[in-house]
């Protein structure tokens, strides 16, 4: 991959985006003025695409050293020494943590949501991307985490941190239980079973009125500011820069989501480049061969299901805090598909890809809403087309390793 070709790819991507978006974004028909023509929206879209492409090229380069199956001591030639890298990471994290200080609350909410989705997508990468187990009902685990959190805080008065942990544990237990019957299933059958699980969770939440509120919503955020679980002087010190709690504890949610995402990325990256992660990849590549090399497939698959569900559960707890209320419809099949799309778009097995996929599919549509007013309406269509397109152009995903292709 020469720099020249990377530049060419970026230019090509933005040119194509420009050309395609002209008829949609630049031509408007209004009752008064007839057709109007304005190139600026198309130019903005091309700019956004170029920025995304540059980012993609950078991460892709990094992916050759950090991607699935890369030896863990491999370092890019331009890598900083360990100490400087740590400092740079810490500085970046601090910068991101301070974003809410100057950005609007809408941005904070959207960023929080994107980070929550990124946690789910990175967790889902363990089953779909690493172990090659197609899970189509992942929203079910998200729901289990969210409702566990909501029920414990509302009905039993639990505080934030223990209730969040309980959400993760409940979802993990559910993942284990779904994993048991799924052990004997492969491919399509597994997909159908997990899909059924997701829909069953939604149906239960919807029909159980006494505790979950059913269709009438579970008012999840009864206790704003509860996130300030760290009390006393240390707590004062930690939260003081954020002033008074936002309406829903927005800033605290943002920070907690950031912390959870960092923890999630850290542990899934470590998992991917360890003995257990290698067993997951081996399982994906060839189950029979993996068994014959000593991989206990039952244990390994259950590990994948359980840990993947746990991340969705932890994310669910945050969602419960962040939203005013929980409605079962939030956790429907479309959401599960969206999660899968995030993973596939980013690249199977790639942690950075999952983050990118989550960001792209959650943040881009609302941003583009200025130009395509009905874009959220068309989201399923767009995602479907995107997936089909990816299969043809880049089956390994944006940041996946190319090696399958090289294998011919």
């Amino acid at each position: 991959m020469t720099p020249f070709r990377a530049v060419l790819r970026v230019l090509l991507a933005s040119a194509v985006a420009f050309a395609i978006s002209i008829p949609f974004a630049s031509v408007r028909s209004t009752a008064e003025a007839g057709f109007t023509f304005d190139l600026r929206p198309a130019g903005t879209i091309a700019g956004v695409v170029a920025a995304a492409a540059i980012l993609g090229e950078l991460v892709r380069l990094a992916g050759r050293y950090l991607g699935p199956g890369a030896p863990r001591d491999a370092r890019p030639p331009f890598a900083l020494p360990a100490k400087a890298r740590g400092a740079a990471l810490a500085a970046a994290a601090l910068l991101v943590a301070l974003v809410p200080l100057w950005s609007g609350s809408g941005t904070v909410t959207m960023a929080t949501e994107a980070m929550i989705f990124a946690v789910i997508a990175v967790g889902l990468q363990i089953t779909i991307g690493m172990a090659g187990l197609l899970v189509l009902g992942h929203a079910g685990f998200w729901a289990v985490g969210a409702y566990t959190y909501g029920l414990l805080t509302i009905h039993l008065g639990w505080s934030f941190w223990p209730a969040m942990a309980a959400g993760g544990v409940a979802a993990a237990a559910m993942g284990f239980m779904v994993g048991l019957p799924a052990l004997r299933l492969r491919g399509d059958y597994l997909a159908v079973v997990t899909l059924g699980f997701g829909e069953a969770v939604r149906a239960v939440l919807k029909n159980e009125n006494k505790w979950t509120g059913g269709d009438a919503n579970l008012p999840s955020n009864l206790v704003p500011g509860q996130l300030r679980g760290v009390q006393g002087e240390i707590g004062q010190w930690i939260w003081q820069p954020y002033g008074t709690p936002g309406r829903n504890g927005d800033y605290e949610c943002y920070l907690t989501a950031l912390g959870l995402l960092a923890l999630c990325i850290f542990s899934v990256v470590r998992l991917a480049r360890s003995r257990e992660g290698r067993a997951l990849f081996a399982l994906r590549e060839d189950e029979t061969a993996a068994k014959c090399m000593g991989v206990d497939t039952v244990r390994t698959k259950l590990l994948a299901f359980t840990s993947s569900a746990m991340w969705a559960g932890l994310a669910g707890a945050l969602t419960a805090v962040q939203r005013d209320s929980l409605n079962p419809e939030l956790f429907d099949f479309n959401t599960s598909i969206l999660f899968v799309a995030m993973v596939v778009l980013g690249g199977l097995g790639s942690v950075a890809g999952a983050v990118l996929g989550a960001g792209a599919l959650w943040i881009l549509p609302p941003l583009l809403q200025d130009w395509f007013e009905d874009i959220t309406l068309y989201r399923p269509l767009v995602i479907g087309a995107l997936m089909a397109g990816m299969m043809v152009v880049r089956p390994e995903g944006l940041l996946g390793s190319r090696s399958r292709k090289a294998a011919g």
Partner: protein
Amino acid sequence: MTALLEARGVTKRFGGLAAVSDVSCTVAEGSVTAVIGPNGAGKTTFFNCISGVAPPTSGEILFRGVPIARRAPHKIARLGIARTFQNIRLFRSMDATENVVAARHCRTGAGILDCLFRTRSERAEERNSRDIAAELLEFTGIGRWAASPAGSLPYGDQRRLEIARALATEPDLLLLDEPAAGMNPKESLDLVELIRKIAARGITVVLIEHHMKVVMGISTHIVVLDHGEKIAEGPPDAVRNDPRVIEAYLGKEDVS
């Protein structure tokens, strides 16, 4: 010589078809045993029975006197039986080194917490696995492919990588399913050399092979299967001249 592996009346049925039928034989420790027979004779199925991939319908298999016929493949691997596959089954998108390191799963023990915290023992284990992988890639003559995706290796070298991966499990018994399939004569000769080196390491080898040059060149013992049944067994010279073998199999080919 003592028996490392003993098959007792091993039978494997697929519906009405007995792919392996009442096969009994022993593999002596330190030997190179060849399993030969026409296509569809049940050789691969026999390997599947031994390695636990497809447990026998009836009969028993003893490894060092321990019954293994109904054990899971990963447990059998841990006991010290490794195998390669006739239709190559590499972890295609992982590089050659990772393929071999993945097979160390058998002999390593880092759990999920060790992996997350990268404990001292986990790091030592990883380093050791990488050293072993590098050594095995050199040993099998594919060191130059260490960082290449397994699926992109030339065909013959993929077969060698399968052998390196199997060796990484530190087996006492190595099952090779048609390791020379698709190789040219020169590559086959090199392979014979490699199998000799493996045997010299004290590893007992059982191989399924069609190339008679390979079989006669290295095996100390031959088992002949036909239609799932064992029709002959013995040292190469005796088997070569056995009338049943000539009729069933070798008669169609050049024996020399």
